[in-house]
């Protein structure tokens, strides 16, 4: 077993027992693994392919966690952390891109390829992030559901498992949260 795996497993267990400092050590390890996985994915897949949506986090989990020693709560915690990290990464990336656009280079030549992956998304991640902050104030659980479903690509069932709630609740909350967030973001645009 790779040392990282022991380490992360132990940290997760510690964190689960209430050791807050464990989380600080945990985050960079998970982040690094996600980064490595992502790089591996992009290299493995050919041009124009992006990765399989949920595989990333699952694979990071499998690599990082010694599953014999981990309790399902720890697994849930892991997905929770990964989801937060994914959100942070994405929002940071979107912010950088936004800045770049505002800066705008005036070079006339462009070889720009339209990447469909981005087009599909066609969503203001930064605005979504901000709206999600506001949603968390009203309903913490809903914001978690959005984090897990949208930012980490977990299924309804997986989300339910991580949050220890029923899939029906996840479905219900997800539908309300989507309506709420959509209204918020659309409102932002109209302002």
């Amino acid at each position: 077993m790779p040392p990282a795996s022991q380490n992360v497993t132990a940290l997760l267990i510690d964190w689960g027992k209430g050791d807050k400092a464990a989380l600080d050590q945990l985050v960079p390890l998970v982040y690094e693994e996600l980064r490595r996985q992502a790089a591996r994915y992009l290299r493995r897949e050919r041009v124009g392919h992006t990765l399989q949506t949920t595989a990333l986090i699952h694979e990071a989990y499998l690599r990082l966690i010694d599953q014999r020693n981990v309790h399902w709560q720890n697994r849930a915690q892991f997905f929770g952390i990964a989801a937060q990290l994914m959100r942070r990464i994405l929002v940071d990336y979107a912010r950088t891109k936004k800045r770049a656009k505002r800066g705008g280079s005036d070079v006339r030549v462009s070889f720009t390829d339209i990447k469909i992956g981005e087009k599909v998304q066609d969503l203001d991640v930064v605005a979504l992030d901000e709206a999600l902050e506001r949603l968390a104030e009203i309903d913490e659980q809903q914001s978690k559901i959005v984090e897990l479903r949208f930012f980490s690509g977990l299924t309804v069932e997986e989300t339910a498992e991580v949050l220890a709630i029923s899939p029906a609740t996840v479905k219900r909350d997800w539908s309300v949260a989507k309506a709420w967030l959509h209204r918020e973001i659309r409102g932002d645009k109209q302002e």
Partner: protein
Amino acid sequence: MSKVSAQYWQQVKDVFEGALQRRDAERSEFLDQACAGDSELRREVESLLKSHEEAGSFMEVPAVASAAESLIGEQNKLRVGQVVNHYEILAAIGEGGMGEVYLAKDTVLGRRVALKLLPEYVSKDPDRLRRFKQEARTASTLSHPNVCVVHEIGQSDDGRPFITMEYIEGVTLRQRMQDRPMKLNEAIDIAIQIADALTAAHEAGIVHRDIKPENIIIRRDGYLKVLDFGLAKLTEPTRLNTNDSMSTLLVHSSPGMVMGTAAYMSPEQARGLPVDEHTDIWSLGVVLYEMVSGQPPFTGPTPTDVVVAIVEKEQKPLSEQVEDVPYELERIVRKALRKDTDQRYQIVKEMAIDLRSLRRDIEIHRSVAPNLSEHDKSFPSRSSSAAVATGTDRAWDTNAREAARATVVEAPLVRKKRWGTFAVILVAGVVIAGAGFWVYKKFSAPDTANPSSSHFRKVNVTKVTTNGNALFASISPDGKYVAYIKSEGGKESLWLRQVEGAGHLQVLPPIEGHYYGLAFSPEGNFIYYGYSETGDSNVSEIYKVPVLGAGAPPVKVNLEDGPTSFSHAGNRVAFVRRSLESRTDTLVIANADRTNEQNLASRKWPDRFSWEMSTRPAWSEDDQRVALPLVNSDANGFFISIYEMRLADRTEKITPLSAQHFQEPGVISLTSDARGVVLSARAQGASFQQLWYLGIDGSARTITNDLSDYRGAFLTADSKSLVSVQTQVLSNIWALTKGEGGDPTQITSGVGRYFDMGWAPDGKVLYASDASGNADIYEMALNGTGVRQLTSGMKRNYAPSVSPDNRFVVFHSNRSGIFQIWRMDRDGSNPVQLTTGNSESNWPQVSPDGKYVIFQHFESAASGTLWKVPIEGGQPIRIAEGFAVRPAISPDGKWLAFWQNDGQPNSRWRVGVISLEDGKVRTFGLAPTVPVQWDTPLRWTPDSQSVAYIDSRGGVDNIWAQPTAGTSPKQLTNFTGSRIFSFDWSREGDLIASRGVITSDVVLISDVGR
């Protein structure tokens, strides 16, 4: 937004949820009630409901896909001022799908170049890199004005591959199209230049493979350059084996993968097939279409939708998108966008010539350049151009009128043809994203030219497999692929075959478990199958495996929900949910994301919505109705209706089909016009399972009529073809005479099936056979002569057993409806029914004292029990507890043997032996090579010491015997091939066995019209 209390928010959620579950009409009333005058609450909920409706695909695709790029994005960039070999980076000028593009200075030659970083993996494939270099060099030597020159393909000192090329000042065609609407002549001019570049390249043997607006740069002087010749080849997926087009299909795309610039892919590219110049012609056709209409011909919310559209759909005519499109342009685009490469332009030069002559025509007749775009669709109308009234305008006007006339003359033909395809095609859309796979099925309004009863009136039958070992098969909705299960050496495997091709491709390798049923997902991307590790179909589970995606592991899917059908608007799904617990089928509709499920109607088993997991509901064209087959049953078997629900007021409409009753219905498929069904089933009283068509006009026709069984009736989307598994049994009776040891002798030479056998005390052999087309009981001498038919004209008759005094023959027959035990005189006269009831009784055996008949009786479909009835008639009595079938009494009358099972899922069949003297029961577990099915026979060896059964170890059936003493089983026969269907010993110890082969092959049945 102000701070919201948790309590208030919970209230909002509850009311929102409640409102979602109600229909529009009821919502307002519900809100009145639920909000009880709280106008703030009501406003909030209504605003959320509105947002819910507008949200569409909002957040439907997880964001994680793009996370990977941002995670590593930083690693793959160059800084301004950085030096790569002898190139100095001046500026970043764009992001490519494969990496960044920079403006760089060649410090050796002092010129400016464009430098593109390539993905790292390309350097790991030196062979490809070499081929690409060669091709790029060839392209550059063309020195064609429309081909961008590649200067160098190299590797930086730190190992990163890059390519440098001519730096062109200009805008990409993509930017040009976004800037402002294009004029017709401009669009044609650009297409001509691209065609010229391609002509030069193709003549030098180079295929571009990736023609798209991003790869076309328009200089300020109007000249155009095509970039990246051959680059696509460097970066496209590796082919496993270029000779086998099927394997390329599998590496090309995996589920959940998002593919790049799908809109410009040719159908052969989308399918992962090898490509040639035709692919560039297609892509040019797409680019031209987009320039004229403002959008590519094949679009969709996700790349997968796009790919499906490319492969399956016809583009909308340009004339539907833009007014006054010259007919000739329409024709050129259509010819470039032929899905079949044989029908496409064969060389791009031909297309260039057509485009040039079109341009000439337009130049002659045009004085006003029409604007073409989505935003400004209004070509100058003929009247407005006539108002300009110059000489040329009149000429154009005349020409346009002629063109219009020509269009009028031709349009009905063209349209009709198009509708011919469209009206019956199930338009399939698909999204592969997370867990959503959807599709919609279309049934059109009644088409008088194509009445329902015309389906499969005249057919062509072709064999898709010829190995004789197919178990299940299904066809993809587009009719291009057939998936099937084959069994070899006791192991089953899943295969795929291209209908128009030779290759058979293994999707899943051979395994010990057993498959139960097979179906394509509606959009054809997945194969669903039932599978059971143990071979117990009651505990089989449903899995799916992608058609496109080599080695992807099967995924278990919800057993309860059948495949979904998407509404034509794509916002709702319909499916059948079956509950094993409550034994009900429920027709459910839901939003596309599976929220807001609504149960429309339920049927308690044995009434069923459809029959197998593969049947899915169909939406009417206006999405107002959902239809599916409804199966009911009575004592005579199953009968079928078409069930339809109007969603607006939830009214049901049930249209009974033919009164024909069936046994063993298999897959029931609704035709695309929802005006009938096809199914494989055994008609009441018939010996063979045949394919049937039942129409709402009451028609009932057999599509097949032969001496074989058909299992499954999977329709293509257009209902023009179906796939089934045809099983033929060829068996004969063999004799092994006691004492002679030696070789068995074949004593019959029929073509057909010989079933159960029994010896008569007079030395004759009685047997059931349907070699004549109907299952009847016959007798013959051991040398095969003296054949005499004992039953005839009375439906199906099996399992003769003769009483020791040679007076009676008992057998089971369905002549009174369902199978019951019958008795007749030894010569076939005086039939008497010994059992009655609503469930079957079979496999009678006369007791050695000749007084009783022992038989198996199914109290319910799932529980067999053993009974006896006096041979003279009387009240049947149950003689053994528990689940037991196929009774066999020992010659000495002391033992009764049977197949026994404790009725629990997964439990194995054993041989049970009960002592008729003291009632003690013993059971024997047998080797796993025994085909322990309740329909293989058990017999006693002549000495009454052992129970004999069929064991197929080594793939060959032989008869083995398990001694009641409990010692190890012994092999009694040494057959080296074939299957054994039945066997029995005479009192003298002679053995007869019905042996033969079962061939099961996949057949494709095509409707060839009347």
